[in-house]
């Protein structure tokens, strides 16, 4: 365990922020360019994970355990969100026989 705690020493916090920003942006791009509802859902998971990583990095940086507890709550929320979201997608597939989000334009004026 000692050498693991040594390994992280010396990486600037900015690099963690940049990594999280890049992965969050990849998630945003995925939401914007895909039409498959499940892939869009996976991109949302990517965004959640980027935020989780950043919270953990800040928590380790400032020596405050609250950040890691927060990540734990976000994971519980993500599990609930995935269960509900996939149930909705199954429902959509049953009604329209497709999970293309462009089919779902009934609320569009």
């Amino acid at each position, binding site marked *: 365990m000692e050498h693991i705690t040594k390994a992280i020493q010396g990486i600037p916090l900015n690099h963690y922020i940049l990594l999280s920003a890049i*992965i*969050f942006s990849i998630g945003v*791009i995925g939401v914007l360019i895909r039409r498959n509802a499940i892939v869009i859902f996976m991109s949302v998971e990517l965004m959640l994970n980027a935020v989780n990583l950043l919270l953990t990095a800040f928590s380790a940086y400032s020596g405050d355990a609250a950040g890691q507890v927060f990540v734990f709550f976000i994971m519980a929320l993500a599990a609930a969100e995935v269960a509900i979201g996939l149930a909705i997608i199954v429902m959509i597939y049953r009604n329209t026989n497709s999970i293309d989000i462009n089919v779902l334009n009934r609320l569009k004026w």
Partner: protein
Amino acid sequence: MNISLFYFVAFLSIFFSLLVIFSKNPVHSVLYLIVTFFTFTVHYILLNAQFLAIVNFIVYMGAIMVLFLFVLMLLNLNKESEPAKSPLLKIAGVVAGMCLLVTVAGSVKTLHTSNPIVLQSPTLGLVKNLGKVLFSDFLLPFEVSSILLLSAMVGAVLLAKREPNDA
């Protein structure tokens, strides 16, 4: 070698998350997403957040990904049936995402160069310490999250149930 480990894993995270959104087959996307979550677990271990590493491993790679794969297989969508968006929309989406990235990276640049992360207390991310914090400072949110999970379970069952008239 120690420092370059972080950059290597970060490169892998970015590479596999790009593969997630650009692969045509949704099943490949799920598999790449599992690899991406594995690299996140390595990041957590590097930050000495061992509890989060294990929880990430179990919850994300175990539960959530199995759920995704089940739904994909259940709907029989493992063929490349997705109609592509028009190239113009794709380019617009990529440009918008890059603009977001440039904005965030630019605002990070205005900060002065940050100090390197130094672990002040090596026991910060261990189960003992986190459990103490979770059950003293965060007791009420912890209980509320159990209600959240319960309502999610009820909602999922209700939504996925067939309506009686179309069965």
